């Protein structure tokens, strides 16, 4: 294992060094902007997104029983990342008046249908899971 770890470390450092070479080919103002976006990604994820998710869980979790928690967890995991992925499409920030072939799907109604479908699927899956786990028990809570 020691050899494997050393090999991975060496390969990783070589890849990082290549990345550094590519980065240094960028003009300085662009390099600074990339650095700002990389740092901003850490701050927004660790400092905003996760705390919001944890806060939501702390507020909602204790009010739900096992089945409710299972349903909400499934729904958040299914729809949360999808919502972030869909931001550029739902927001249409890159839309161009002269190009109707870009961002031309029915994104908003489609998104609503997906969220509703995911909610139903999450509820059904949570109900099934709690039935098979207990036969009877805490579903009613």
């Amino acid at each position: 294992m020691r050899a494997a770890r050393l090999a991975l470390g060496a390969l990783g450092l070589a890849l990082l060094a290549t990345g550094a070479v590519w980065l240094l080919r960028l003009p300085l103002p662009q390099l600074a902007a990339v650095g700002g976006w990389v740092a901003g990604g850490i701050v927004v994820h660790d400092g905003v997104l996760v705390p919001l998710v944890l806060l939501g869980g702390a507020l909602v979790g204790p009010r739900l029983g096992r089945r409710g928690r299972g349903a909400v967890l499934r729904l958040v995991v299914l729809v949360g990342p999808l919502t972030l992925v869909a931001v550029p499409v739902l927001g249409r920030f890159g839309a161009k008046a002269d190009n109707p072939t870009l961002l031309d799907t029915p994104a908003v109604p489609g998104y609503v249908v997906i969220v509703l479908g995911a909610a139903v699927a999450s509820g059904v899956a949570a109900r099934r899971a709690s039935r098979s786990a207990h036969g009877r028990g805490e579903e009613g809570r």
Partner: protein
Amino acid sequence: MTPRRLDGLAAWLDARLPDPQRFDGDGRGPRTAARVGVWLGVAFGLAFVTGLYSHLAQLPSPPVPLPTAPAWSYRVTQGVHVAAGTAAVPLLLVKLWSVYPRLFARPPRPARALVLHLLERASIGLLVGAAVFQVVTGLANSAQWYPWSFGFVGAHGAVGWVAAGALVVHVGVKLPVIRVALAEPADDPGPEPAGRTRPSRRTLLRATWASAGLAVVATTATGLPGLRRVAVLAVRSGEGPQGVPVNRTALAAGVADLVRDEGWRLTVTGPSGSRSLTLAELQGMSQRAASLPIACVEGWSASARWTGVPVRELATLVGWTGSHDVVVRSMQTRGAYRESRLPAGFVADPDTLLALTLAGEPLHPDHGYPCRLIAPARPGVLQTKWVHRLEVVPA
């Protein structure tokens, strides 16, 4: 700062930052992180390799000649690139959630341990920042949204190397933890503790796999037969003039008036002189038909039937010998993609066309009227439109 004041600051922070032990432990930890991490590694690996291929294919003179067959190679690799990057979003978010309490782990006191701790922190910071950067810039680029001041191609490529390097280092550091975690079952066996209200780790993992699948199907399935209508969150429906979407219109390229010019001529230059051809003369040459995809890095592609004159025939008129490249120039006066270089291997392929028709009609202005380049296995941005000049040059 004096050591005493440093100690005071450390104590102040220690009292205010949450204790990693105090986070709700269920579902978190190495057993989740390792399982999600394996698939995240696969997704990032696929995105890295296919991304490198795209950079290679976009070099004016690739160091190794790229194959022109199969014609769909660029289309499939770039579809995989965007699908893998999209699948990485839920995987990355769940992975980072599962190890989030470790953000608040207190550094060890002994100097050697502290240095190692800080190095590991730095590598993880780099990994998280680079990973978030890659998915954010990649997704925004697909929708032609550029809310930043750097060039996308150079930055996304460079940070891709950084993300790959930081990831490999991280796997090397964590290898013993990963092996132990993967050998253990996802959930402890036996009956669940009575009164337990939290979903199991298995539930979380299944939801994560479903989330990755949903994100891919909803955004990037336009290239898959039968799934086009399901991809409601794709950046394009796949519709467009003559059945093909447009990346850059004639208006945006500043050639809307130029393409209507009756005096248009194609100039072909090479070792044995130059030729000037009218559209009628091009149409009079022997035409070849080919079904070839337009495939963009942005994750969309469309196959279409093109007819035109093989570039090789035109190049041969001015002394092309098989070892020359051909530079293809557009009427566009600005834009990074107003010219492209066709490596000799691509010129030699008879399916590499100076296309005059699409779906049986003269090219729509947004598809490059009066003529455009279309070659197999080539990035969409290099399929130069509104061509007015071909230059046969030494490879």
